[in-house]
Structure formats: structure tokens, C-alpha cells
């Protein structure tokens, strides 16, 4: 597996939101790469900055500072026309298929919208557009009879398939998947996850897969980033993180998942407290207040990143 090609490179990415109480550290100094054809899973609780990260990469939100390289060119330095071109290569699938689709557009209209917006087809060339829509619906497993249906006539799984078809319409190379299955039932969730894996294999897609569900992330990711209050606490290959979860937060997250087996009792490593405010975060480890292993030094020191295994990084005082 040598010579992996880096598709997306993020360097010191920061996004602070101004609030009346001070800057909110949504994404704070993240650096990572995503290789072509791979999936990077981003896990964390609500409010840890996962979605902000995804949106910054696509320039839906302007980052405060940092660099984002897509195929070697700096996304942040793009002009508007260049950005528009770039967006054909980078797409997003949203979490909630109930609110991310225009209720007054039919399935066909929703899927062809990106084609028309990018000017790939002329508005009058209905034959070619219809062919492409058919092709896309076929690709995501939507039956042709839904072509003139409205979103409210369809269930969550099918709606999410429309979301995926839209994202694929422009033949992107990279897709940010922002909790694409968390609004779906388990039996449908498995259908969509399998579809996304098939599409990745067939079309050579690269995913940034944002989720709060560790079992989903384990299933779909090659590499994983665990985030806490805008920073990463642990990152590495999926295999390595699940075999050897090193950061106390990662371990707490893992132990918090209810085990679907009545014979195995849950270990009670219950995290005290809740995510604290990302405003005025101060020095020291941001997780220290909730950490079962925290010592005095954790609240003061600056953290640096430690490589515990090859390619597996942890940001915790314990390993320094």
C-alpha cells in the first residue's frame, strides 16, 4: 500500500465564531491528510466541531485561519470562479434528508439542479438531462417510478438516496458525509452504508465521514479522528484505534456504547459532567474537567501530540 496519494491536506485549520462572550473555538488547529480513495471518520459529541470542519473544507464557512489543499492547490486562495469549479469535485451529503431537500422540487428536479447550476447541460437539452438523472437514480438504487415524486412522498432511506444522487451528479472526487445515516432506522442505515461503500469502490470516491456513532465509523473508515471541543484527541487507523484506544476520552466513548448482547454487562466508565463551553477554553487539556484520569498538571500544561504506535497519534499528558 505504498505511494498513497494525498487528496486533501488540512494544515492548522481554525474556525472561531465571534460571540458576545468571546471567541467560540469550533475548530481549533486541526492538521490531517486524507488519502485518495479512503474514508476518514470524524467522531465526537454534539458541539465538538465536526460539522464546522466539514463545512470549512467545502468553503461553506470561511475558516479563521489555516490551509486546505485539494489536489495540491490551496482552496482558500481560490477566486470565486475557481471555487465554483472546485465544487464540482467536492460535494456534501447532509444529515437530515427531511430538511435538506426542497419540498417543492420533484426527485428529478432535485437531482438535475446541480447539473444546471454548473452549466454542464443546457436547460433545453432535456433528453441528455433525463438520461443523466436516470443514470444517477439507477446508481443509488432509486426506482424510476419516483422520478416525479416529491420528497414528502418518500421515506427517509429514499430521501437520503436522493441526497446521495445529488452529491454524485457532478462526478465529484471527494464527498463530505455529514451524519448521513443518523436519521435512519438500522435496517435502512445498513442499506445506505452498503450503497456508500459500493459507490466508493466503483467511482473511487474519497469520504470525510462525520458521525457520532462509533460502530458506524469503525465499519466504514480507514482512518479515524476523534474530536473533543474543536481539537483532535486521538487519530490513527481505524484498526489501531479500536484495538488500542489510548486517549481516556476515546475509551470513555467506547465504553458508553450499549452492547447489543445481554450476556455482556457494560463496564461502567461513566464520564462525569458534560461537554463544557467552547468559549474561552483556556489552557491545558480541554477534556481534563471530565477525565477520570486527570491530574493537576493536565489543567495547566500545553499538550503536544504523541505517536503511540505507527501512525496513531494521541494528544494526552499521560503519554508525554
Amino acid at each position, binding site marked *: 500500500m505504498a505511494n498513497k496519494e494525498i487528496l486533501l491536506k488540512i494544515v492548522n485549520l481554525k474556525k472561531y465564531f465571534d460571540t458576545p462572550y468571546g471567541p467560540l473555538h469550533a475548530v481549533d488547529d486541526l492538521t490531517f491528510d486524507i488519502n485518495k480513495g479512503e474514508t476518514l471518520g470524524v467522531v465526537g*459529541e*454534539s458541539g465538538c466541531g465536526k460539522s464546522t470542519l466539514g463545512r470549512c473544507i467545502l468553503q461553506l464557512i470561511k475558516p479563521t485561519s489555516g490551509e486546505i489543499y485539494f489536489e495540491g492547490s490551496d482552496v482558500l486562495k481560490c477566486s470565486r470562479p475557481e471555487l465554483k469549479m472546485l465544487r464540482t469535485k467536492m460535494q456534501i451529503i447532509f444529515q437530515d434528508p427531511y430538511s435538506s431537500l426542497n419540498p417543492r422540487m420533484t426527485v428529478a428536479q432535485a437531482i438535475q439542479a446541480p447539473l444546471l447550476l454548473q452549466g454542464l447541460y443546457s436547460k433545453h437539452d432535456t433528453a441528455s438531462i433525463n438520461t443523466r438523472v436516470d443514470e444517477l437514480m439507477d446508481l443509488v438504487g432509486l426506482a424510476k417510478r419516483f422520478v416525479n415524486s416529491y420528497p414528502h412522498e418518500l*421515506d*427517509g*432511506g429514499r430521501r437520503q438516496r436522493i441526497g446521495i444522487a445529488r452529491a454524485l451528479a457532478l462526478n465529484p472526487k471527494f464527498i463530505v458525509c455529514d451524519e448521513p445515516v443518523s436519521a435512519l*432506522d*438500522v*435496517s*435502512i*442505515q*445498513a*442499506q445506505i*452504508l*452498503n450503497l456508500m*461503500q459500493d459507490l466508493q469502490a466503483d467511482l473511487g470516491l474519497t469520504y470525510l465521514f462525520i458521525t*457520532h456513532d*462509533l*460502530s*458506524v465509523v*469503525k*465499519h466504514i473508515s480507514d482512518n479515524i479522528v476523534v474530536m473533543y471541543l474543536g481539537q483532535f484527541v486521538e487519530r490513527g487507523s481505524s484498526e489501531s484505534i*479500536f484495538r488500542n484506544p489510548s486517549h481516556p476520552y476515546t475509551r*470513555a*466513548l*467506547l*465504553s*458508553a*456504547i*450499549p*452492547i*447489543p*448482547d*445481554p*450476556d455482556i*454487562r*457494560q463496564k*461502567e466508565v*461513566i*464520564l462525569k459532567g*458534560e*461537554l463544557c463551553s467552547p468559549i474561552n477554553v483556556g489552557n491545558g487539556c480541554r477534556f481534563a474537567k471530565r477525565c477520570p484520569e486527570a491530574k493537576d498538571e493536565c489543567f495547566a500544561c500545553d499538550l503536544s501530540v504523541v505517536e503511540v504506535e505507527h501512525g496513531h497519534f494521541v494528544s494526552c499528558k499521560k503519554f508525554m
Partner: protein
Amino acid sequence: MSNILDIKELSVAYHTEDGTVYALNNIDLELEDGETLGLVGETGAGKTTLAKSIMRLLPVPPAKIEYGDIIFSGENITDMDDEEIRAIRGNKISMIFQDPMSALNPVLTVGEQIKEAILAHNNISEDEAWSKSLEMLETVGITKNRARDYPHQFSGGMKQRVVIAMALACNPQILLADEPTTALDVTIQAQVLAMMRGLKEKFNTATILITHDLGIVAQMCEKVAIIYAGEIVEVGNVHDIFKNTAHPYTKGLLEAIPSIYADCKRLKPIDGLMPDPTIRHEGCAFSERCIYCDDICIHNQPPAVQSVGTDHKVRCWKPLCSTLS
């Protein structure tokens, strides 16, 4: 042990302009005193309709209890008039709703809201009710001095604790928890579930826990009922459901969850979708999606729940484990 709740052949339908939705069909369910029953099913299977039928909170019309009885300690809830049901609702049977953000009144302090629930059912003074309200907050792990705070000042997990305090304030005999942790993060979910386990030991309230998360069921429940398209397809103790699965749908659900313990390259989804609830099916409701489906399944209703073990029943032509005669 005695049954505190006995649901017999319950059928509920919603009569709408677009047709009749058969939400619950012939539900039989028993709940013993002090037991936790997990009610598992997908969106639209009828979980919440069942809970609302027990609470008599169904919007009538369009909803209508077509047939069947809900017997709560000897009395039939379906026959009660408004006054009788009000004496039970929130008092002897109470409910925790899925979304704590919308279950609380934004313009009342949390202490007031709990007090309100207590005063509605107990003939005590305001002061007594207030101190009882503070006591309930402490029981769910919220300090007394937050009683005068408003819901928006609490996080999601804390709000759900307030809702639980309110539900338990009148010491109910049955607690209906409708997806109580679905809106919460995993670490907060773990805290709330641990607290609910503790409360269970303290109050010994019979609980129906509605969820779609089989992990929560395995960790919290003694008994499990699997509901599909308005029918209970399998019911049994938690061990039988997980280890001696009888219904193909239950098996499908168990196999569809990605596991953090096992390595698998590909998930096994259940193909297809739940059938349209406005159409009455001739045969088994699950037949379209079932890999074991046969002619008999398509054309004939599966036999009413048959026993496959002690307290383990399944509604299927071809149960995956052998039936006891």
C-alpha cells in the same frame, strides 16, 4: 407474578382523508409488576401509538381504538371516561417523551413544572409539593439550587433528567419511556441510562422502554417485544430474543447493526421497506422482505403467536427455532 398491564387484541387505526392507516393490529402484551419491557421497532411500526393508547393520548379522531382491551390493575383503560383516565395519567402511569427540549414548558421553572405534576394528583399544600419537587430533582442528580432555573438553562441530558423527575414524581406503577435517550450524546446517554437503572432499583416501577437501539435493550430490559408494521412479531425474555432468535425480522435487525466488536466488511441490511400501513396484507406483513418467505407466508396470516419456549412467543410461519407443542 401478577400482570400490572394486560393488553389484549388491541387494534388501533387512524381514519384520514387519504385512507385508513392500520397502526396497530391485534396486539397482545403483558407487563409484570416491576419488570422492564423493551419495545423495539422501526419508525412507523406503531411503538408510539401503542404508548399513546395506554396513556389514552391518541388524537381522537383521526385515531380510533377499533378493538381490544388495555387492562391496568383490573380496570379497562379503553372504557374509562375522561375523569377516570386523568386520575391515572401522569399519576399511576406516566410517560417520558423522546425530545426533552419540547417536553418542557419554556416559561415555567423546572421546579414549578414538577410541582405542578405533584399538585395535580395529590391533595397536599403548595409548600409540601415544592419540597417534594426539590427532592425529586435531587433523586435524578440535579442540585436543589437549580430548581428556579428555566429549561433553556439546562443541557439536553439535564432536561431529560427533569422530565424523568416529573414522570416519577407521583410514584407511578408504570413508566412509559419513549426513546428517552435518542436525542442525547452517547456519553450523556450512558449517564441517563445508569441513572434510570438506579431509579429502577429504588422505585421498582414497571417500565416499557421504547427504543430502536438493541444495545440499550440488551443492557436495560428483562423482556423484549419486537413490533413490525403494527404487529408484535416476537416477544420473550431478553436472552431468548438475542440468543435464540425466532423471527426472521428480529434476526435481520440484529444482523444489520454494525458492531464495534466484530470485523465485517459488509453489513447485512434487511432489503426493502416496511409495507404501506394503509393496505391490509393478505399474508405475513414481513413476507416481502423476508428471505425465508414461502407461498404460505404471502397468502396466509401467520398463526397467532405460538410458543417457542417458556415465555417466548413468535408470530411466524417459519420460526427460526423449533416450536414447543
